[in-house]
């Protein structure tokens, strides 16, 4: 039974962005603050480059501004070069572990879910990351949007088996 559960879990995970490369090392919980520090920088960039602005997202989808295309395009280029270097030089983590990559499997969810998310992105003017930065910027009502996004995720999990993938 335990084996079966593990297999199911892995299948679920392979469809997902969740980290499938689990570290064997056990760190104290406060080690996670290094990720919080990266998050702080990300949050500052979100606000200072106005990526969390509802108006910037509307301008993107109305082709009135290059700003968001520039941000995402540059991020992909920098990210791709970094990943290439990490793979080429077999760079290890600061704890000496190997850095691993998992290929994403195609499923129809990427089409249906992608379209649904796109619709929501243009309404709220925010993807999941910016929602948290918007909340931090003082727009407290965004807590409603986040709660609703959690509900959306939960409903997806509940009816996952009935949806085409």
């Amino acid at each position: 039974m335990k084996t079966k559960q593990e297999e199911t879990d892995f299948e679920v995970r392979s469809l997902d962005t969740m980290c499938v490369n689990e570290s064997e090392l056990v760190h104290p919980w406060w080690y996670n603050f290094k990720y919080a520090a990266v998050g702080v920088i990300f949050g500052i960039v979100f606000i200072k480059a106005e990526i969390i602005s509802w108006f910037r997202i509307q301008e993107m989808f109305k082709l009135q501004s290059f700003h968001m295309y520039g941000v995402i395009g540059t991020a992909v280029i920098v990210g791709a070069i970094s990943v290439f270097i990490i793979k080429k030089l077999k760079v290890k983590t600061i704890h000496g572990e190997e850095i691993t990559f998992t290929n994403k499997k195609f499923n129809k969810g990427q089409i249906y879910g992608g379209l649904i998310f796109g619709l929501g992105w243009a309404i709220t003017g925010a993807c999941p990351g910016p929602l948290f930065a918007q909340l931090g910027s003082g727009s407290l009502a965004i807590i409603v949007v986040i709660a609703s996004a959690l509900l959306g995720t939960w409903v997806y999990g509940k009816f996952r088996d009935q949806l085409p993938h």
Partner: protein
Amino acid sequence: MIETITQPWPWYVAGTIIGLIVPTLLILGNKHFGISANLRHLCAACFPSNIPFFNYDWKKESWNLFFIGGILVGGIISTQYLSSPDPVVIHPDLAKDLSQFGITDFSGLVPVQLFSFDQLFTLRGLIMMVGGGFLVGFGTRYAGGCTSGHAIMGLSDLQWPSLVATICFMIGGFLMTNLILPYILAL
């Protein structure tokens, strides 16, 4: 120096820093950039309800919850200490379009005339805040990722399913902003 920081940052600066988050997370602990998974972890932590999709050890993914906690704090820091005194610049055509729907306050990054607790009691506000949020949460999980996991991390790793997802994000966004949103804003 501080004046340069408080100005709105150009796209190439923001894009470069966001791009560098990809190798930073990998080198810090073999973590893959992806934010929407947190919505799943929060469901798994708070309301697993015996649903197999939420039945996993979310604590192993707690690094990501720290990451979004950091984003929240970053939002507070830059609003409190690094904000620019100048109003946000809006494309004149967008300002004109929005003014038809009574949206004339462009002072914040989030339009208060659309996203506020008061608006929750209007049909338009309800659709945009509750409906929009639901689509974001449902769609990202259905697609297996959002802008960070697919468009940035996935494309950086040259994953073609991520390209499919990214193209669909954009199609959905174009449809909403140009064809559907005008009807919602008119409510």
